[in-house]
């Protein structure tokens, strides 16, 4: 840690520089946006791909893991979009479709009153400075080269605005669809602005059409107005081996707002999910939950920066991992209490079940506290299944495999159940059960 490292540019970094140089003229946005892109790319180029000497990327060395930068997917053609009609017929109402990172309003469902959706490109062209400022998301904690790369190369995305006081009964879905068999890269940046006192749920789902090989760098910015109530879920369940998904999630929580988010990650090559949560106004509540289920050689990293910049906010962070095979789980959670953010109540818990003899878990729950009148705590556990629980279940007649499955299902399910919403709980518990069944099947296969 003491020798000086002057990194030379990797092939992937060189390819990204070339892609930016060649492509930037064609990217949306007027002069101010072009400047933002240039500055962002310069920041990325200075830092390069994050590596193990960057504290927040210590356990996900992208410089080593990302061997090549795939060509950026071209914007889908009208014909390609039309060809999707059949595939998306089953999507729920109020679905906003992003195809290879490009918003396709013509394929998206009708929106209720109080909700508008436009494409990022249109928003950037609109010259509405407040939108561009929101999109730039120049937050102190979000100083990250992958996010900078996203700002430089953002091709499109969706801007959703929820009117103040609007109570939206049905969830709004942001649906990521992928075209084409050719492995390619996608960069999208979306923004959801939620007015004061509004009430809404945003569900992010993926539609594995052409399969999620390739590289995705998405950013979603959520601005939650005062006293709004917002639910959010994200399903990262359709990845393929070899794929890489970088997800940045930025949430700004207004005064007295309530925010609750859940994500399920089942595998998929390489996943890095980074969440920047900022309590901006006093007396808000925010909960982040996540379950990661990994097998094979999958690698999933969830990294949180939770900043309490206002007084009296309550933050809950609760994450669980089940790691089988040779998989690697990473949990980093940094809870920061700014000077003056008195009466902060912040808690974080990361629990891991390590099943595979070759699996690895790295956790780093951090507290950084600059105010004295706070109650903050974190816990982390890592280990195998509890032998006493297994024995107890077996004495009640459950065969070992069934006992194990019951405990695994309960371990992941406990967090899912906290979602509270019946339909969501059922859907996510089904995903967990499917993962466990697939695992059991591959175990039987390898035992045979």
């Amino acid at each position, binding site marked *: *840690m*003491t*020798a*000086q490292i002057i990194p030379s540019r990797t092939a992937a970094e060189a390819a990204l520089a070339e892609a930016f140089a060649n492509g930037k003229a064609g990217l949306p946005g007027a002069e101010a946006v072009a400047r933002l892109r240039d500055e962002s790319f310069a920041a990325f180029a200075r830092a390069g791909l994050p590596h193990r000497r960057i*504290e927040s990327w210590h356990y996900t060395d992208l410089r080593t893991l990302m061997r090549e930068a795939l060509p950026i997917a071209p914007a889908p053609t009208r014909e390609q979009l039309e060809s999707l009609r059949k595939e998306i017929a089953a999507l729920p109402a109020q679905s906003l479709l992003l195809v290879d990172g490009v918003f396709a309003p013509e394929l998206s469902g009708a929106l209720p009153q109080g909700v508008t959706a436009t494409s990022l490109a249109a928003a950037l062209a609109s010259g509405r400075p407040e939108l561009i400022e929101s999109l730039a998301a120049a937050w102190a904690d979000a100083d990250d080269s992958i996010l900078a790369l996203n700002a430089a190369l953002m091709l499109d995305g969706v801007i959703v605005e929820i009117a103040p006081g609007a109570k939206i009964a049905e969830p709004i879905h942001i649906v990521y669809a992928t075209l084409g068999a050719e492995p390619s890269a996608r960069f999208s940046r979306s923004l959801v602005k939620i007015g004061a006192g509004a009430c809404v749920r945003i569900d992010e789902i993926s539609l594995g059409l052409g399969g999620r090989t390739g590289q995705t760098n998405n950013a979603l910015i959520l601005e939650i107005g005062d006293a709004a109530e917002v639910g959010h879920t994200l399903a990262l369940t359709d990845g393929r081996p070899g794929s890489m998904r970088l997800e940045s999630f930025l949430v700004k929580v207004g005064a007295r707002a309530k925010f609750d988010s859940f994500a399920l990650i089942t595998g998929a090559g390489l996943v890095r999910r980074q969440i920047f949560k900022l309590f901006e106004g006093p007396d808000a509540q925010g909960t982040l939950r996540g379950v990661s289920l990994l097998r094979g050689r999958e690698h999933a990293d969830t990294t949180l920066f939770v900043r309490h910049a206002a007084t009296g906010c309550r933050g809950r962070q609760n994450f669980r991992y089940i790691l089988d095979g040779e998989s690697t789980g990473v949990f980093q959670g940094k809870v920061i209490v700014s*000077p*003056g953010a*008195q009466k902060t109540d912040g808690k974080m818990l990361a629990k*891991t079940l*390590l*099943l*595979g*003899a*070759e*699996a*690895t*878990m*790295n*956790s*780093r*729950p*951090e*507290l*950084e*506290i*600059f*105010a*004295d*009148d*706070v*109650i*903050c*705590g*974190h*816990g*982390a*556990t*890592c*280990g*195998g299944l509890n032998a006493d629980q297994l024995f107890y279940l077996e004495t009640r007649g459950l065969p070992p495999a069934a006992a194990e499955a019951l405990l695994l299902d309960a371990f992941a399910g406990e967090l899912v159940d906290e979602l509270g919403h019946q339909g969501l709980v059922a859907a996510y518990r089904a995903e967990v059960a499917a993962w466990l069944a697939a695992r059991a099947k591959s175990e039987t296969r390898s035992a045979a």
Partner: protein
Amino acid sequence: MAAVQETIERVKALDVSEYKYGFFTDIEADKAPKGLNEKIVRFISAKKNEPEWLTGWRLEAYRRWVTMREPNWARVSYPPIDYQELYYYSAPKTALGPKSLDEVDPELLKTYEKLGIPLNEQAILAGVEGAGSDGRIAVDAVFDSVSVFTTFKAELAKAGVIFCPISEAVQTHPELVRKYLGSVVPPTDNFFATLNSAVFTDGSFVYVPPGVRCPMELSTYFRINERNTGQFERTLIIADKGAYVSYLEGCTAPRRDENQLHAAVVELIALDDAEIKYSTVQNWYPGDSEGKGGVFNFVTKRGDCRGANSKISWTQVETGSAITWKYPSCILRGDNSRGEFYSIAISNGYQQVDSGTKMIHLGKNTTSRVISKGIAAGNSQNTYRGQISSHRKATGARNFTNCDSLLIGNDCGAHTVPYIESRNPSTQFEHEATTSKISEDQLFYCMQRGLSAEEATALIVNGFVRDVLQQLPMEFAVEAQKLIAVSLEGSVG
């Protein structure tokens, strides 16, 4: 309530908020020229009359060091250190090789008396009420760069225990020094350890032979006296098979406006069934209330549980230094070995503490326990940084970590940075951390019963750190408790 009453009285009896060890001893010193280069390294080695292999070892470390950069990952900030502006060797002129206490410079004796460290064996015996042999402590006193006197050597030798300055051990037990020196903290380990390997001047050496339980507590007392002098001591403790030793170090320095550099290395080796208990009460000068002066304490301490069923336990009470950068660690190599780390780190004024531990589980069924209590007051920053890791083959590894932080006042910061890395499904790691302030209810309760805010705070803090204080040898637990109260003075109201 008796304990409470006692604590109150103790708190009341304490000195005012002065660093009471801040005096300077005017004594003529033998110094090397200022600055660092190969010539200085050779000079130190020649002063100590070292064999050629050790001179070479130092030079290799020096050459490595010039290629290295200071680490910057810790949460501490300080002005750049000009390594060429320091003296790397300073010894009281009269201190070289006293055979008995009569030959020790009376000024030095006075210094240690003032510090509460009597070097006179008779006085020690007389001073301990109802002294059984258990109440005695053998002391190695290190003044700037050299060891000035070691007590109870003869009696320890009877038990077969070697306790002497490391420079002496190089002469008298070269085979042991050569075998173990650098075997836990290699000369290439990190910037400060490498610097230490090049220029270390003295320190303590302990060897406890197989099956021997060291008959008394061993202790080293470090004193930085000279201006602009770096202190680079090196301690090496070996507990052979089935041996046991308990060791304590204490540290103070005069008040000075400029910063003093302290970069020590401590290596512990526990062979099969051996146990080493290492306690530190660190009270280097922390700087004044404006953040001026104070010791920069960059220390590498590591224990190697090399043998099966061995145990190493670190206990530290850190109240001093402007900057603390230290992570006493255990490498749990032997099967069934155990590592422990108990820490109280108190920061006040403009102190910056970045301290914690590493527990590296390599052997089977290894266990470790980490209890850390951080207390931040004034404008200080107090960080716990700890790493717990298990190797693929470390089946049955267990760790329990608890780190609690207490904030006193609104201008300080308390931080927790644990790294938990598990590579074995039979590993059980548990980590918990909390940060809070002293509850208003507790304060009010104590004040209603007549304690001042400061007394109440000291009382509550003593409760907060009790788990760790209990790990200290009795005599030092009392000393540490007083220190805690003193270092928190001025933090309330």
